Structures are given as C-alpha cells and as structure tokens.
C-alpha cells in the first residue's frame, strides 16, 4: 500500500500525527493509540450506560468488542468519533483528550478515523466512485489525486471497475465494501466498525472481516464491535466484552499481545525503535 505522503501540502489535516504510521514525536509511536480512563456515559440519570470504563488499545491492534445487546458497544464507538460526549473521564486518541475537543475541531478528529456501520450508510443514488471520493474531497484533495486514490482503493476492496455503478444496484456485501473503501481511502490511523457484518450472510461476513484484517495488516488499528460469536471464534484477535458498563477482558489476542511484548522487549534493548506493524509469531 502506498502511504500518505506526510508532506503533501494539498491535504489539510490539522492533526497530522493522527495518521497511520506518522507521528508527532518518536515516542508517540510506542504509546497506545487509544486510552479510555474511567469513562462514564449516561443517557438516563438513573441508568448509566458506561460506568468507569477503562480500555487501552495499542497501535496496530485488531480488537473485537462484544457484549450483550444494549451493553454499550455502539455507545463506546460513538464516544470515540464524538457523536456523543463523555459525562466523566478521559478519552485519549494519540495522546489528545478528545472528550475536550470543541465542536469546531470534531470534523478534524473524524478525518483521522474511518467508521463503518451495520447499515452501510452509503448514499444510494450516488455512484460507487462518488461515495468513496467524498472522503477525499472533504480533505480538499485535488481531483486528479482523488481519482487515482479511489480507483486504487476500490481495487483493494474487490470492487475494481465498479466505480461508475449506481450504489443502489450493488448487493449488500458489495455496498459494505464501498463503506469500507470510504473508511480506508483516507488512510486513517483508526477504523471503528460497528457490527459491520450484522446485515450480511455468514460467508459474506467472513469476507468483510478478512477485508478489515487486510487493512489491519498495513498498520491501521481496527476496533470491530460484534456479537456474532461464530465470527469471533474463527479468529484469535484480542476480545473485550462490555458488561455492566465496564470492560472485562475476555481474551488476550494471541498475535497482537505477543507482538507488543516483542516490541517493548526490542525497545528496551535498542532504545527508541519504532514499529508500525505488529509482528506475527
């Protein structure tokens, strides 16, 4: 994958260090990409949805978020892309407390995130190309660059040559690929997926999951909320479960956790070695 040129002056991103593989200072690469500290969220005063939730997500991790319906999985993701604001606690994204961002800054936070939903949220009457291109147009990228980037990304998600199709003519699985393409075309540091396979057949669900894993392979952190246990059981990523408004660690991901141990071991030996990708064992 061609990476985002950090010196591309045509692209306006107030927080350049939010991007995958680009860091403000060398030590940031070793720090977790996302830290939630004692997060409280109430929709109703008598019944808090999240109460004292703590969570740390490392750079390059693939994380399953699960839990019963109504546990607050969607709420957790919504707090990260600032659809909602925390009542108490901190959410550090690349070391910045996003719970304190002003509403003017929220768009710039979102430019560093890719979000994918169960119901796709693609514009039905737009073409596939338009649905993906909008994410880059928002970044003020020149049309020539937008074109090549979108074409490239559509290839990546298996929709090569479908750019001119009206999105409503695509199948559910294909529409979700459009949504994934839109989420990754800007090469964000973090992808949030809220039950992206919820509306898809089991074999399509595996395809989409694999697509997210391929994105993860390139260094992008993925948080994948689902309550589909058949999907979770097929993989060995880290799993957290939300219960009673808190995180209970259900399983330490074999790959990412051991990878992190290797990195920190290497760091203590070599000083400030920086690893973008988790190393598989």
């Amino acid at each position, binding site marked *: 994958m061609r990476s985002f040129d950090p010196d591309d002056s045509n692209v306006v991103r107030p927080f350049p260090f939010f991007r995958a593989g680009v860091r403000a200072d060398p030590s940031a690469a070793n720090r977790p990409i996302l830290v939630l500290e004692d997060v409280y969220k109430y929709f109703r005063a008598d019944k808090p949805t999240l109460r004292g939730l703590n969570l740390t997500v490392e750079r390059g991790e693939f994380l399953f978020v699960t839990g019963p319906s109504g546990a607050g999985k969607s709420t957790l993701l919504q707090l990260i892309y600032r659809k909602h604001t925390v009542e108490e606690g901190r959410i550090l994204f690349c070391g910045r407390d996003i719970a304190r961002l002003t509403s003017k800054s929220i768009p710039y936070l979102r430019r560093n995130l890719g*979000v994918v939903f169960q119901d796709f949220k693609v514009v039905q*009457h737009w073409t596939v190309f338009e649905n993906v291109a909008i994410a880059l*147009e928002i970044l003020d990228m020149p049309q020539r660059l937008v074109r090549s980037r979108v074409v490239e990304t559509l290839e990546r998600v298996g929709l090569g040559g479908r750019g001119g199709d009206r999105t409503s003519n695509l199948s559910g699985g294909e529409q979700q690929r459009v949504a994934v393409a839109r989420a990754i075309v800007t090469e964000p540091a973090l992808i949030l997926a809220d039950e992206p396979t919820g509306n898809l057949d089991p074999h399509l669900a595996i395809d989409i999951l694999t697509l997210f894993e391929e994105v993860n392979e390139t260094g992008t952190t993925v948080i994948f909320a689902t309550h589909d246990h058949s999907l979770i059981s097929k993989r060995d990523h880290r799993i957290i479960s939300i219960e009673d408004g808190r995180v209970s660690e259900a399983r330490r991901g074999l790959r990412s956790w051991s990878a992190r141990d290797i990195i920190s071991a290497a760091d203590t030996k070599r000083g400030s070695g920086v690893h973008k990708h988790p190393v598989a064992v």
Partner: protein
Amino acid sequence: MDMKQLITRARRGLREEMRLYLVAVSSLAVAFLCLGGALLALTNLSAVARAWGQSSRMTVYLRDGAEAEDVAQLRALVEGLAEVRAVEHLSSEDARAQFLEHSDVEAGLAALPAEVFPASLEITLAQDTGAPRAARIAERIAQFRSVSDVETYRGWFSRLESLLQAGRAIAGALALLVALCVLAVIGNTIRLAVARRREEIEVMKLCGATDEFVRGPFVLEGSFQGFMSALLAVLLLMGGFLLVRDELDATVAALTGVRAAFLHPAALVGLTLGGAAVGAIGSALSLRRYMAV
C-alpha cells in the same frame, strides 16, 4: 474550500432536486414579474414626468367675442417678454379641427359647432423658465379683459409628480414583499432539500466535513434559484414589452410625447443579482434553523 468541487456538488444537488426547485423558481418568477412590471411602469411614468416638466407650455383661453384689437395687443405684449419663445393664435375653428384630428371620434362629436372650442393663444416659454416666474406671467396675462383662463399645466405636472411618488412607495413595498417571498420560498425549498438529503449530510459529517463544506452547495443552490427566478421574470417582461411596444408607441406615446422604454440595465442587474443575494440569504437562514449538524 475548493470552488470547483463546490460547484460540482451544487450542480448534483440541482439535478437531484430539479422538480422541487422548478416549482420554487416558477412561483418566484411570478413575484419578480410583479416587481418588474411595477418598475417598468415607474420608469415610463417618470420619463413622462421629466418630459412634461421640461416643456414649459402655457395656453391662454380667450373670451368668446373678444375684440381682435385686444387680442392683438395682448399678443404683442406677450411676444415682448424675454422668456417667451413663440406665440401661436388658435381660433375656435382651428381648435375644433385639431381636436377632431387627434381623436378618432364619431360623427356625432364632429357635428359640434366651432363655438364649443374656445380660441386660444399657445405660448412656448424658454426651457429654463422657473415655475414661479411662469406663474407670475400667467397672473399678469389673466388680468386682461379678453382672457378667460390661463392653463400653465403645472397642476398636471404636480399631480403626475405625486402619482410618481406613490408609485415609488408602492414599488419599494413590493420589492420588500418580493424579498420576503424569496426568503420564505427558498428557505422552505432548502429545508425540504436538506430533509431529502439527510443521508448524504450524515455521511459527509462522518467523514469529517465542516459545517461550511456541507452548507456550501445548499447556499449556492438557493442563490441560483433566486437568480433564475429574477432572470425568468426579466425575460418574460421583455418579451411582453416587445410585443406591445409598437402598440404603445402608436397610442400612449402620441398622447404623452414620450416613447415607451424598457427597464434600465442597472435595474436589470439589480433585479437578478438581488434575486441571487436574497436566495443565498434565504438558504443560509434556513440551514441555520433546520440543519442541526
């Protein structure tokens, strides 16, 4: 924000909401047509007023049976005044002939005897004669024995002036009303368009679009509707004007001495750009109220 992209997105919006926008544009064109019509009437009325204000004419009606000698004496005196450029004596017979020539009336009127039309002296004053001076001359002439009445046409002129003033006030009120109409109609249309495009607005916000980025095309679309409404009205008005101009020139122009004129180019530019500006404002106000993004 990239202007080209903004226009591309606005054009996509215009294409998608074509029917909705056509309804708005056609109803607003009617409003603009009323305003344009009022302005057109005003333009021509003030042209007439200007022409009349400049032509300093005076008619001295002579008593029936006035002595020819007295009339000759009066005429000599009038011709001696510095302000007077020309004097023409119109006998009853002349007046009758002139009247019959200017109005295609039936034989019944043509049968009227010459005595019905008073003889007169038609006086032309210098262009720069002020109203007070003209009034003083009229006063002096009226004191002559052979004179029955002096018409300075000042009364007509001042009546036309007050008519014009009322016309200007009405046009002003109409302009305000049309502006409010544009605000309301375009505001409502944009509200509907926002509701219909909820989905894409949500997508753009999710991808990190600023409010300005999302609103830009809507403002441009509202502005375009205002512009098109005004332009359509101007074109309709011009078409109508060209159709009836020859007719007008043959009748009204002969009476008033002023040819019918269309709106001044500045007024045309003002109407269309005003339409565009008010359309943009209506759209922006509507977005502030209805787009809680």
